[in-house]
């Protein structure tokens, strides 16, 4: 569950990465957008200003041309101020010369030439590129005296420009007019010259002011009238205006660019960038999901592995519990010593050895299951139970092995695993060893009399589990007192060092020869050390099992100094003081060193009698359990009872220096126990008084 949470945390971490990446990208694109926006606007302004300057020059070129024409015509009119008819050819000359004007006119103050009437205005208009139409157009219908250009001329100022107006008499288009006064002999203004500039033409020459598709431009007079406007409206949009004033005419040229137009490209790029960012984020999301999935898999895998490892640990402890842990000599069978060890290559292995004594016979076996690990260990466990069950009522090795083979070759063995096994029965009284070898390494017989190692001759039998109904042959050999039989699995002779050299049979027999006169446990420990030294840093490739037993000399047994044997002993006593002598007998059976007899006797008696006197009320039935754990270096006694809580260690110590008259009768018992034992501990547990005494040897 924990690891699932971890996975979710990691996935959430991935989501965070995604969010942070999105925010960072967004921030970057925002900054990019605003900086680009500023530079694009600057660029637009620069471009607008450039075009405006150009337009200003272009327009001025034309206005100056018109002004020059107007002044020239005014000069001509002044020269022929008394000859009204000459003005026809003069206007015609000007229109013919100044290609960009649509029409020119000279309008005289009313009744200047009485012969010509109240109105007299001579006008030449361009009809086409090579045709000019000249006529008098002044009349009451065309009352030029009220027109702006005429009034401008009367102001006696050169080259004033009118507001745009429809030229109804001349070109029939919208025009602006430049006016110049014509002076009479006395310097008074007698007429006004007017040179028209067509707005259509102005628009035509300023078309390039539309610098963007969708931008606008305009030329306005000083009074705010549109001289040129294209297109007409920019209402309802955000826009930028760039303007330039033309000093001579007082006009203003403007370029108007809506924001949408300026930033169209930026918007397009922004859209592409956004799409790319979205794509990147989706890609990132995909990667995160994938890696989170992998992570979950890894976590699941490691969980599985942990579980497997813990199960292997359990399997190993179960397997180890199947192996013998207590080895002879036992009290009942003092003439046999035995020892064995299994060193699995993996956590659990397929090697086994087992033994037990029944009816003064040692039943033993050593075996090796093909393969290693859990499957082998399961077959090993089965083989061991088969050994135990068949030997419990049979005593012919060949028969037992055949029965075991029958069980291992039935349909349950689908894995086709086989077991090499050496099974033997040693008669402890006669030394006769009957055995059956099912394809296992032949054991080595250490013959004490001849001082030599002999590989036990074994007939070739198949391993167990190979062939159902195989006839196994039993054999027999005689073991003398002092002889040792050393059994092992191929993990010993095939143990390899880093150079892939095998330990081999020769090293085994050499080692055995050296430790010939030693007991089974010493032999095996020596062998273990030798093989470990040989293998060095190389990895153990196979399970390694050794088992050895020795038939001890009767004389050897008697002459050996009595040694305390490791073991557990117990005595149950009724709550009766008269039971005390059984304690002494039991202590005798522990075979403690002579010098311990009295102290142990005394201490135990004091404790037990204390329990009987104090923990159990008088005549109440009850029991006192006395246990001894003996080891070479110390003995641990445990005295437990189910009486009322009673802690003897809390009793007051007597003063042993007092004179006889002052000495108390009681309290001596526990005092003696303290003196006699090395440790004393009281514990009340599970409604029991438990007193532990330890005596070091």
């Amino acid at each position: 569950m924990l690891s699932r949470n971890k996975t979710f945390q990691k996935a959430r971490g991935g989501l965070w990465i995604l969010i942070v990446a999105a925010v960072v990208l967004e921030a970057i694109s925002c900054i990019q957008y605003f900086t680009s926006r500023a530079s694009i606007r600057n660029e637009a302004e620069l471009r607008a200003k450039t075009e405006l300057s150009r337009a200003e020059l272009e327009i001025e070129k034309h206005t100056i041309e018109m002004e020059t024409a107007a002044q020239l015509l005014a000069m001509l009119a002044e020269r022929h101020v008394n000859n009204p008819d000459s003005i026809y050819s003069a206007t015609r000359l000007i229109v013919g010369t100044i290609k960009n004007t649509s029409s020119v006119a000279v309008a005289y103050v009313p009744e200047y030439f009485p012969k010509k009437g109240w109105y007299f205005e001579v006008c030449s208009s361009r009809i086409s590129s090579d045709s000019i139409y000249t006529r008098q157009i002044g009349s009451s219908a065309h009352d030029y005296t009220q027109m702006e250009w005429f009034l401008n001329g009367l102001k006696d100022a050169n080259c004033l420009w009118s507001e745009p107006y429809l030229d109804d008499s001349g070109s029939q288009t919208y025009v602006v007019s430049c006016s110049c006064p014509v002076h009479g002999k006395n310097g008074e203004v007698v007429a006004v010259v007017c040179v028209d500039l067509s707005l259509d033409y102005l628009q035509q020459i300023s078309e390039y002011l539309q610098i963007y598709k969708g931008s606008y431009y305009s030329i306005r007079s000083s009074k705010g009238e549109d001289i040129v406007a294209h297109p007409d409206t920019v209402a309802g949009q955000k826009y930028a205006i760039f303007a330039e004033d033309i000093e001579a005419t007082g006009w203003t040229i403007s370029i108007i660019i809506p924001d949408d137009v300026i930033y169209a490209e930026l918007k397009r790029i922004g859209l592409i960038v956004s799409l790319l960012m979205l794509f990147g984020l989706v890609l990132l999301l995909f990667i995160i999901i994938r890696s989170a999935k992998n992570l979950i898999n890894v976590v699941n895998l490691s969980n599985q592995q942990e579980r497997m490892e813990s199960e292997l640990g359990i399997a190993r402890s179960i397997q180890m519990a199947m192996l013998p842990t207590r080895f002879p000599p036992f009290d009942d069978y003092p003439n046999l010593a035995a020892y064995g060890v299994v060193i699995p290559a993996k956590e659990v292995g397929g090697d086994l050895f087992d033994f037990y004594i029944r009816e003064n016979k040692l039943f033993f076996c050593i075996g090796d299951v093909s393969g290693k690990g859990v499957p082998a260990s399961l077959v090993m466990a089965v083989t061991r139970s088969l050994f135990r069950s068949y030997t419990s009522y049979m005593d012919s090795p060949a028969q037992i092995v055949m029965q075991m083979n029958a069980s291992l070759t039935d349909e349950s063995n689908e894995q086709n695993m086989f077991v090499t096994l050496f099974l033997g029965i040693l008669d402890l009284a006669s030394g006769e060893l009957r055995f059956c070898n099912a394809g296992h390494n032949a054991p080595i017989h250490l013959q004490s009399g001849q001082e030599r190692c002999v590989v036990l001759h074994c007939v070739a039998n198949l391993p167990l589990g190979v062939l159902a109904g195989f006839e196994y042959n039993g054999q027999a050999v005689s073991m003398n007192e002092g002889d040792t039989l050393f059994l092992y699995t191929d993990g010993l002779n095939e143990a390899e060092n880093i150079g892939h050299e095998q330990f081999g049979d020769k090293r085994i027999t050499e080692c055995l020869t050296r430790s010939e006169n030693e007991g089974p446990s010493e032999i095996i420990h020596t062998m273990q050390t030798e093989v470990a030294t040989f293998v060095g840093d190389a990895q153990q490739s196979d399970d390694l099992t050794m088992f050895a037993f020795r038939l001890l000399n009767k004389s050897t047994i008697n002459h050996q100094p009595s040694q305390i044997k490791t073991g557990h002993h117990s005595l149950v006593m009724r709550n009766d003081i008269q039971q005390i002598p059984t304690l002494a007998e039991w202590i005798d059976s522990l075979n403690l060193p002579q010098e311990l007899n009295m102290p142990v006797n005394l201490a135990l008696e004091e404790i037990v009698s204390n329990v009987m006197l104090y923990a159990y009320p008088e005549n109440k039935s009850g029991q006192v359990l006395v246990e001894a754990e003996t080891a070479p270096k110390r003995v641990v006694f445990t005295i437990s009872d189910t009486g009322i809580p009673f802690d003897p260690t809390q009793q007051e110590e007597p003063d042993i220096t007092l004179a006889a008259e002052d000495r108390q009768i009681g309290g001596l018992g526990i005092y003696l126990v303290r003196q006699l034992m090395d440790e004393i501990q009281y514990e009340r547990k599970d409604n029991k008084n438990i007193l532990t005494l330890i005596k070091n040897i």
Partner: protein
Amino acid sequence: MKTSIETNADQLIAHFEGRLDTAAAVQTTEDVKPLLNAANKEIVLDCTNLEYISSSGLRIFLAIRKEAAAKGSKVVVSNINADIRQVFMMTGFISLFEIK
């Protein structure tokens, strides 16, 4: 455990034989009663055949010692084995009795 008392003119000798443990103490307490009544005598506790003594036995010895002192008698413990001597040492009894 067996206790026998030998009576002389000015001497009472108690012969202990066997193990004087808690179980035996009850009977021994009965057996040594004659010693408790003796006045102005030498009381000898003969331990030649006494194999073992526990605190119950020590109490009997102490009771005899106290009673004797009160009645002007003198108590002698004779021929104790090494184990019993060790117990006497540990308990301070060695200085309460005259040991022979």
